[in-house]
């Protein structure tokens, strides 16, 4: 479903060109559960942004569902994002003035879905994620785990084919982190392609496919919980912005 062919991405920092991704070849099928691990600055977030169409590759092609999405204009890409891609962020990114229900409804509003269907879907999502009694709470009245559940409900409201999660447990304690991962993994059963960026080997180790990145390249892929030992102590912070 996701086909990356020699995808590179470089940024201009000062008068220097810095390569964040170098010739990435990657295929991900529907229902695949992929984790991307690697040290800070290895390009995992850049790769995730590219797959999420938030960023464009400097070279190479990206096919989503067989169609080349590299050549689409901004508006067409926005449409693809709306219909096929869901995001879950480390910082949750809920709109603070909107209630949980309204945050979940947001992608449906943006996609122009009718109010009656919107309401029905939101009610169902609130139920699925155990948030029915939290529907009218604003994000600052919710716990971290509840916030991330709202974010997952929001990401799945448009029934995306791909769900991208950037450090989804980064701001959560271990127990709630595990709960959140369980919720995300349920989507894999429903044939959603789940891609999780993390530097936590425990979280990353849960995926069927584990990609390790160093210096903008995928250096190894394993199906087992092997991988290289991660220098965890340097990895507590979110990956700094490369630009």
């Amino acid at each position, binding site marked *: 479903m996701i086909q990356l062919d020699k995808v590179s991405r470089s940024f201009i920092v000062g008068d220097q060109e810095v390569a964040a991704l170098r010739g990435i070849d990657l295929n991900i099928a529907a229902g695949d559960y992929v984790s991307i691990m690697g040290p800070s600055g290895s390009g995992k977030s850049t790769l995730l942004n590219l797959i999420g169409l938030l960023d464009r590759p400097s070279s190479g092609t990206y096919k989503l569902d067989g169609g080349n999405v590299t050549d689409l204009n901004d508006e067409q890409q926005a449409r693809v994002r709306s219909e096929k891609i869901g995001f879950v962020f480390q910082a949750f990114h809920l709109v603070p003035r*909107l209630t949980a229900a309204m945050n979940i409804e947001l992608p449906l509003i943006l*996609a122009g879905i009718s109010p009656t269907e919107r309401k029905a879907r939101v009610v169902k999502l609130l139920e699925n994620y155990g948030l029915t009694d939290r529907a009218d709470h604003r994000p600052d009245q919710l716990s971290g785990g509840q916030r991330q559940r709202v974010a997952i409900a929001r990401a799945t409201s448009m029934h995306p084919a791909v769900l991208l999660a950037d450090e989804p447990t980064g701001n959560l304690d271990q127990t709630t982190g595990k709960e959140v991962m369980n919720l995300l993994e349920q989507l894999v059963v429903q044939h959603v392609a789940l891609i999780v960026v993390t530097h936590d080997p425990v979280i990353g180790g849960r995926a069927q496919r584990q990609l390790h990145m160093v210096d903008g390249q995928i250096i190894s892929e394993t199906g087992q919980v092997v991988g290289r030992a991660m220098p965890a102590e340097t990895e507590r912070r979110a990956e700094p912005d490369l630009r």
Partner: protein
Amino acid sequence: MNLVDTLQFALGSLRGSRTRTLLMILAMSIGVASVVVLTGLGEGARRYVVDQFSSLGTNLVIVLPGRTETAGIGPGMLLGQIPRELSLDDAQDLLRSRYIRRIAPLTVGSSQISQGALNREVVVLGSTGDLLTIRHMELGQGQFLPAGDVHSSESVCVLGAKIRRELFGQEQAIGAWVRLGDRRFRVIGVMASQGESMGFNTDEIVIVPVASAHMLFNTSGLFRILVEAKSREAIEPAKRDAEEILLRRHNGERDVTVITQDAVLATFDRVLRALTLAVGGIAAISLAVAGILIMNVMLIAVSQRIREIGLLKALGAPAAQIRNLFFAEAILLSGIGSVVGLILGEAGVLLIGKIYPSLPVSAPWWAVLAAIGTSLGTGILFSVWPARRAAQLDPVMALARS
């Protein structure tokens, strides 16, 4: 995302930052209110003048002796002489025009009036019975000057309300005799108290037949001839006829000036309308200032909501939609501001109307439309840049901002 959702979302984000929204609406509404109040005042002044003029009479044409046009000042006029006086027969002859309904010759002088031991100086107006109708004056009691021969110098007079009060107090004035200069006049009527109109106080005058006034002041000339045309359309032909008749009577010499009330009125109208426009324009500057304020606040809003914008983009909102959201906010702000300003302005106009009941204040419809248009226009215009900025934000950067 349809229009209703867009507006609802924009309304939500306006509600999210209450202080900011209230301040913006306040700025916008003050601008709109000041346009409404100031143009209302200007328009009120204009209507006041127009009303005052109309109270002088309708379809009025006024004949003055001498020419007062720029090129027409002869050496005689500089010496205070008038080439030829307007005579009573001149006035009478004007009635030959089929456009003229009635005329009232007018002579003005001042004289001592006395009754018993009381006396004072008064303005004496010499005219005929038609003056009452032409000048829209009101009689308080008794009767006005008798109609009939303009040359008959009957010794009767009509007193202004204040003169009557001063000379007679509580006593009956009708039928009594007063002395004007060296002649005695019988009081046949008293004017109703009208107060001042266009600098002419009818309460402090005495009206006598024009021939009597001529004898009193030993003149034969007229100060003015008031002419009432038969209809509005007849004003111009009546003016032409009057000029022609007097030209013939004065042996082909153009030595009178004929003005129409409409012409004077039109000049006032133009001047005051220009004034209203100017004042409204100044008030509109405050609207432009409010517009710049909107831009500033919108720019701040864009940087404050940078993560929200990034999120909307990640959720699949195209650039145009983000732009529309910010546009909708600006339009809502200036729209609500306009409505509030309109209510404030109309309330202000109402208040001024209560304080100065004689001033017919009301904002003209074009000013109200212009105020709302300007406020919406500036609101939209000044939100173009912030909206574009929001739409062009890079989502990756926007989301990474903490």
